[in-house]
């Protein structure tokens, strides 16, 4: 791993390096649960999506959902990881009200997916390589609500038994920003693959953030695990807060205790869990209700053949085929919907111009209105049509910006807007010539100036555009001005 010294944090005793690894729990997109036929949909009535198996009634047995297995393999392939032909389900034993069996079926020593790698582009142009240690399948737990009764917690098992993929990264992240960017990239990959919807609001993706600090070059420090952080921003805030806390603690003569901490999103702080747990002893052993999960290479090959183009490959293609900058390409592939939108706009058009419009005006507008690309008032077809109007000189680039605004407000097609509002560009040289002549006649002093300072020509262009209501074709204006003012062409 490269030593990314730029990320170091200043402390009272010198610079510190923060070391972060993420354990991401991603809910597998499937209709039914991992070991039962109950539904996985979000927001059902309490305990409605619970089978006898999910409630761990006496004598109930798990049977694995084959699609969840395929989703895990698909994800593993998307993470460039080794898929294990034999994996084993273990029981992780602990008592908790939302864990009905008293154990979670998980994979401990032999996960379905082994080592992989994820490339993460940072805004400064740097690409970091984050190692994936493993991915395993496990059951989700239910949900306890503590605010519905003065003295009781209420337990809803609708989530109990839903398939999760736990994706464990190596401690390769060196800042809260990197951690958030990694999580974002991971989410992008899962959404491309269709293996997780990535809806962090609904809990379908959560991260446990492992943070430690050390002096550069030193051994890893003692780490703390911040449980269940549920947004990218919170991952960054939690990691930054925790790193600072640990540095201050050590520099104040204290010692970091290995512990599980909670993140309070209101204060941006992490705190020790109040329920003091005894040292975990999960007593893992292979689940005797299940056999080892074995499959053939042919299954992996079949899934591999069905994989979509993934963000890294697509970005590469945008750079090589479309000539986009790596940064723009990275932004455009960051989610599958944006990439699809862009490709529709770019189809049969100049890909760079298309990219400028999408990453420029379109993104700014969506940002301002707080909309996702799928909710955009300007469809990809309409944006494409707008670009066409510029390309065929129907309107100028400047007018196009105005048309775009009208498109946002009216959702109308650009052609109709241009016609209805008479925004068609003037390319008629005589009309433009007349405007130029009028400007020259009215400003003899400026004409004299421009002979000495050819850069003054811009002023004339502006005047002419104003006179024509912005509709004059700028190329024609430039060309005629040069001639009339005897400027070097």
């Amino acid at each position, binding site marked *: 791993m490269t030593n990314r010294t730029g990320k170091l944090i200043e402390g009272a005793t010198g610079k510190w390096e923060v070391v972060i690894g993420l354990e991401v729990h991603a809910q597998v997109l499937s209709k039914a649960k991992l070991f039962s036929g109950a539904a996985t949909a979000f927001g059902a009535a309490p305990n409605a999506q619970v089978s*006898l198996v999910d*409630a*761990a*009634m*006496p*004598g*109930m*047995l*798990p*049977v*694995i959902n084959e699609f969840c297995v395929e989703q895990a393999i698909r994800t593993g392939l998307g993470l460039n990881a080794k898929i294990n032909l034999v994996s084993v389900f273990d*029981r992780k*034993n602990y*008592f908790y*009200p939302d864990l*009905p*069996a*008293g*154990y979670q079926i998980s994979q401990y020593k032999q996960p379905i997916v082994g080592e992989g790698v994820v490339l993460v582009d940072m805004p400064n142009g740097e690409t970091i390589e984050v190692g994936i240690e493993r991915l395993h399948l496990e059951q989700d737990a239910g949900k306890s609500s503590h605010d519905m009764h003065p003295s009781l*917690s209420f*337990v809803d098992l609708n989530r109990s038994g839903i398939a999760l993929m736990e994706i464990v990264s190596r401690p390769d992240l060196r800042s809260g920003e990197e951690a958030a960017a990694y999580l974002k990239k991971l989410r992008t990959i899962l959404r491309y693959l269709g293996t997780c919807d990535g809806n962090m609001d609904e809990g379908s993706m959560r991260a446990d953030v492992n943070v430690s600090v050390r002096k550069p070059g030193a051994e890893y420090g003692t780490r703390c695990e911040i449980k269940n952080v549920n947004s990218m921003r919170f991952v960054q805030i939690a990691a930054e807060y925790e790193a600072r806390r640990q540095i201050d603690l050590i520099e104040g003569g204290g010692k970091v205790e290995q512990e599980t901490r909670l993140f309070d999103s209101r204060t941006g702080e992490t705190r020790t869990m109040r329920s003091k747990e005894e040292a975990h*002893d999960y*007593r*893992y*052993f292979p*689940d*005797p*209700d*299940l*056999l080892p999960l074995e499959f053939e290479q042919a299954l992996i090959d079949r899934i591999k053949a069905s994989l979509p183009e993934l963000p890294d490959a697509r970005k590469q293609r945008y750079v090589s085929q479309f000539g986009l900058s790596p940064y723009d390409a990275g932004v455009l592939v960051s989610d599958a919907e944006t990439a699809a939108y862009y490709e529709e706009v770019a189809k049969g058009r100049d890909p760079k111009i298309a990219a400028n419009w999408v990453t420029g005006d379109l993104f700014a507008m969506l940002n301002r209105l707080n909309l996702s690309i799928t909710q955009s008032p300007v469809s990809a077809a309409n944006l494409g049509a707008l670009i066409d109007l510029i390309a065929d000189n129907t309107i100028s680039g400047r007018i196009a910006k105005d048309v775009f605004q009208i498109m946002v407000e009216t959702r109308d097609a650009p052609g109709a807007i241009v016609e209805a509002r008479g925004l068609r560009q003037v390319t008629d040289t005589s009309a433009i010539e007349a405007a130029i002549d009028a400007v020259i006649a009215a400003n003899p002093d400026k004409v004299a100036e421009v002979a000495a300072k050819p850069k003054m020509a811009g002023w004339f262009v502006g005047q002419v555009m104003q006179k024509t209501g912005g509709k004059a074709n700028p190329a024609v204006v430039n060309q005629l001005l040069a001639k009339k003012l005897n400027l070097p062409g």
Partner: protein
Amino acid sequence: MSDLATLTLAGARDALRRKKISSRELTTSFIKEVEGARGLNAFVTETPELALDMATRADARLSRGEAGILEGVPLGIKDLFCTKGVKTTAGSKILGNFVPTYESTVTRQMFDAGAVMLGKLNMDEFAMGSSNETSAWGPVISPWRRKGSNTPLVPGGSSGGSAAAVSARLCLGATGTDTGGSIRQPAAVAGITGIKPTYGRCSRWGIVAFASSLDQAGPMAHTVRDCAIMLQAMSGHDPKDSTSAPIAVPDFEAAIGKGVKGMRVGIPKEYRLDGMPSEIEALWAQGIAWMKDAGAEVIDVSLPHTKYALPAYYIVAPAEASSNLARYDGVRYGLRVNGDDVIDLYEKSRAAGFGREVQRRILIGTYVLSAGYYDAYYLRAQKIRTLIARDFEQAFEKCDMLLTPTSPSPAFGIGEKTDDPISMYLNDVFTVTVNLAGLPGISVPAGVNNEGLPLGLQLIGRAFDEATLFRAGQVIEDAAAFKARPDSWWK
């Protein structure tokens, strides 16, 4: 009216089909027997109304000529099988009021085949025991007594209620479950027949789990044929149990009567224990002679890892049990003792709900799985299981079945062994190897000791070859002509 004292399940089935008797009549008679035998404590829940209702429906099907395999036959169900709408306790206070909303696959199949349920049978708590003394509902008293003695004896366990009910003729057959010998050992000491089929033959869905990798349901009845008929209905692949074998079920009853001529019977020398009672020794020798007389070739084989089976079992079974029993926490069902917080609630509910032997096994199981001990105990025991299974595979290269005693001793007195867990565990010394290797084993009554108490012989077969056990079991049954019956002192 048939004579209940000699009626077999096969006999009843035939009489029902020939309309010589109705299921209602038969069921009514058995309900009376059950009510008259409450002193044995074999049934924990009697379901006479349900039984009569089932019998009525069976009679209707019989009259339409739509008889299933067990049509109209009154049976008892071990209280480990979840029965829809009928209290299922697993012999434990922690499930003292548990009424399942679902039917176990095995009982559903039996009821679909026409069986009539007389009630739920007492058992060791969570099937952990060899004498039925760990039941929260009190011990089952064996119908058998030593000659000239009134000392109450155990019926064996954990399917002690099943063994006592069949042997006291309170039902024509009963379901049992066998994790380390819990069908075969009580069958042997109660003078009846019982078979633990191959692991995966019967679905475990809806049977309260003790040790998942060892548990198997099976029938207990008067004769080999009765067991074959019952197992036919109980067996088959279940898509709800991942360990249920997708293997066709042969016609077990059809195997009976084919004899053992030309078959090879292995005698494992390691089962000849030091200090084994001479009556057991003699019984075994008798069994060997019967096999030879029937034309089988008897050969010596070796199962070198036999002595490690019982200790390995007492790691694996408690380990799995400690995890399987974690669900009994007082939250969703079962006994709840309120506490200051949730942990307190768990600890109090479980302490109050589980009996002493169950707690002991939970602690042992928790300990052997805990950090730092897993390799030394659980992993080692699972490796020894591999060796034990390999022993059997090698033996079955040389023979078609193995013949051994079922139990190292006849029934003992209630309270005689409760203070020494290990001496209690030793009751399973001949049966437990079979569970560890997942093989089928049948116990057939073969004689009585000098006190008049029954003794059984065990046949062990290749995986999914129960048919051979029925064939050979019938040979022993015929040769032994076991006619001993307990005096009906409880009536």
